[in-house]
């Protein structure tokens, strides 16, 4: 089924009410991985509000993303435990190595980078995840190594 069809299917489950906005957005993100300009347009028509309002609501919640995730989605933890162990330095390192900023996806669609409040692995602080794999007790060097292998693997 093409993406238009899938979107129509999602929208069909909800009545035309503003109150359904967040569940719709959640559902769309689950299916498509992110919320695109086109889907915002369709949703806007469905619940009869402007695109900017949809975008306003969506950006109010941290859970929504507006660019497709990369094939390797990286989450750097900035929770308290990681923060005191210099998570910012890890984030800097990752940004440098991948050449993208937090919230961005690399041009080739390979990597995307986000930060999270806490992964729940405080014992391993500072840590990050690449897709479902957790990497803990990071140092700048270790992060470089992990990403280096990740970069290599795909070549």
């Amino acid at each position, binding site marked *: 089924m093409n993406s238009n069809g899938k979107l129509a299917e999602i929208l069909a489950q909800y009545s035309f009410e503003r109150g359904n906005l967040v569940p719709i957005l959640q559902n769309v993100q689950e299916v498509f991985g992110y919320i695109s300009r086109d889907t915002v347009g369709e949703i806007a028509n469905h619940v009869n509000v402007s695109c900017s309002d949809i*975008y306003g609501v969506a950006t*109010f919640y941290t859970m929504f993303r507006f660019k497709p995730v990369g094939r390797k989605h990286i989450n750097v933890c900035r929770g308290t435990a990681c923060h005191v162990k210099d998570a910012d330095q890890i984030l800097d390192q990752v940004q440098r190595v991948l050449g993208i900023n937090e919230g961005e996806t690399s041009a080739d669609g390979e990597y995307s980078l986000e930060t999270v409040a806490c992964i729940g692995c405080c014992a391993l602080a500072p840590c990050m995840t690449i897709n479902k794999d957790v990497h803990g007790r990071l140092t700048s060097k270790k992060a470089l190594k992990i990403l280096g292998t990740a970069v290599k693997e795909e070549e």
Partner: protein
Amino acid sequence: MSEITLKIDGIEIKAAKGDTVLDAARRAGIRIPTLCAHPALEPLGSCRLCIVNIEGMRGNPTSCTTPATNGMVVHTRTEEIVELRREIIKLLLSNHTSPCLVCNDRTLCEKYRPRPLKAGKTTRCTFCANRDNCELRQLVAEYEINDFDLPIIYKNIPLERRDPFMDRDYNLCVLCGRCERICKKIHGKGTLSFINRGEDARIGTAFGLDHTEADCKFCGACIDICPTGVLADRFAKWHGAPDRFAETSCVLCPLGCRVRLSLKEGKVLGGGMTDLSRAGRICALGRFGLAQLLSNPRRLTAHRVRIADGLIKTDYEDAVSEAASRLLPFKGDSFALLTHPQASREEIYILDKFTRQVMKSKNIIITDAATASNYAIPAEVKALYMTGDLVDTADQARLATLDALVIADLFPSAAQEAAHVVIAAAALAETDGTFVTASDEIRPLTKAAVPAAGLNPDWRIICDIAKNMGASDFDFESTEQIKEEMTATGFLVAPGKAPVPSPLDNVRALPQRYRGHLISDIVIALRDIGGHAKPAASPEPAPASDNRPFRIIEKIEVVPNTHITTIHAPAIAEKCLPGQFVIAMVSEKSERIPYTICDFDREKGSITLVTLELGRSSRELALLGTGDCLAHVAGPLGEPVEVKNYGTVVCAGGCYGVGAIFPIARAMKEAGNRVICIEEASSHYLLHWQDKLSAVCDEFLIVTKDGSVGMKGGIQDVIAMLVKRGEKIDQSYIIGCTFMMMLVSRVAKELAVPVQTAMNPIMLDGTGMCGACRVNLDGEMKFACVDGPFFDGLKIDWEELIKRNSAYGMQEVESLPQSGVRVLTLAQACRCENK
């Protein structure tokens, strides 16, 4: 109205049921400050400025959202309330770029700079187009705030100026939400919304799209309701506050919307809604187009008559009598008169009367404004009068075969090349009358603007021609007299058809033509509307070894508006000395503008220029990026400073001067001086090059207007401090805006400190070098371009200099480009992709 009675500040007040406490207070003339509230909007209650104390109620309710009830006792100005309001204002100011508000030199600054300076980004009030109308400034004055408790947070949101008609600088936004509420109120689904949350919360469109892509109607309501300078009408912004408003009707399409014109010194700055509601809405042409049609550089200002092969300028009387004698021989149906429906009823009546009664012809044709000019001239016609560019393009050749062609118009056209007489006309808000709308309502047109000397409206032109031909019934002194006669004769002007789709709902359905001219040829910004092209694919960055002359090796906006551009120019780098400048042309068509050299590297063959984006030419340079080339750079020019060991040398700079003092400080240090560098900025977010300057001096001092870093004050205060602590200053170099150098020179004179001040090239922006750079040095005339840039600050007649600089003000404002900025370079293109 069912009445209630309440007591506010001890006064018994009768209010209507349904009134809020704020409404009731206003009825009694009691002022409660507000920000998010606006008479055209439903209250939101978010800014909390309007808090009051109500007996028996807990907390301090917001009066804009609290219903007034019978017997209520309200206090609006208790000590506690006033103190809380001051806190709220200070909090607002920490998110607003207004260091000028607490500047010690504010009064003098505004006296010497009566109009704000036309900068790119608004980093302070002096650079704010809204300065004269700002509600925050009023609040600060009312609550006597002279210091900030919290430093200003400059958010560094990119300036949004890609759209037609409006510029947006959200660094000034206080999140009152008026704009997004008025947009929704008027258009249902709005273009603007609150987006993001917490610290990142701001107003914007979905995905940061341009307004042209976000269904904006360009009605301008958001601009008109914004209490601060975030949103600005690009055309009107640097003219200052209007001195007059006038209600009229727009005649550009048959809807004939009510428009509230804002005027300054007889010139229309813009249109606006008479009522900020859905019913009162107007389109982009009513809001911005009318003003730009009237005050347009392409307006015809001279009348012309044909002598042999050429059209030569003449005065109005001569043009009228020439028109009369050309047309007179063609009475009967060999004469035709062509006019347009964007005219008053009185005008159409008088043109009709002239055609039928004086010219004895039945050929009076009113073209269709919506479509292209569409009149094919019948074979029998030998003489034609038309009030615009109204003949079919296919029929243009036919014009040359006419025995007489008289055109009354506002703008040039190809048809005029074949004309025997061209009369420049006054129109729209330059004349009055009445207009019949698509809904068959008769609406008044008001004469509000002052036309250029010698220009008359169409009705008067035709009356004068008729009288010149000897007709007796054309002695009208006003449109009122014409209307009386028209009514008596039962003359009717048929209403036009309402356009579908309506320009009110769709910016792509705006009226296309005025008097037959494509409006987008005249109001250039209109070209930006309609699925506009995205910036062209970024050019590949040029390889590092690229040696094209005047290539930009590096270009950064070091702080908002201050651009540092390093250019490949080995010949200049080879020779240049501290204190010198270059003259550059950004493109082949640009003016030649002086730019200050703030660094040079003889080995690499590069020079570095510093510019403040403040006007047209500096904007051109500001918009270039790494890899671009300047068309030409000449230099080094000007007298270098005399480098030797003076003892103690002060090098002080503000704005662009921070960069400009660097090579001087470096040379003075190398010559063995004890160097003290002073950097002045309005606020912390404008400080730059601290490291570079620190490295070339013995002492580095910072002074800010708002006291956010270093001393509070200006360079003059630091110099006074230095003298007070016993420093003997043997020489000083001061570079920055003329106003700052004047302040420093005054203090230096009192303290007998020698000062060399650099005549400020950016102050001459847009005027070139000649004459404008004259400096009066103790009665002796000097020229900055040859004798300068440095002059003894103690001898300069500063008052005269500042006056001369501002004399060029209006010309420069008018030369600013009106279309949205489409940035093509690599650096800028990717920045736009940021949210």
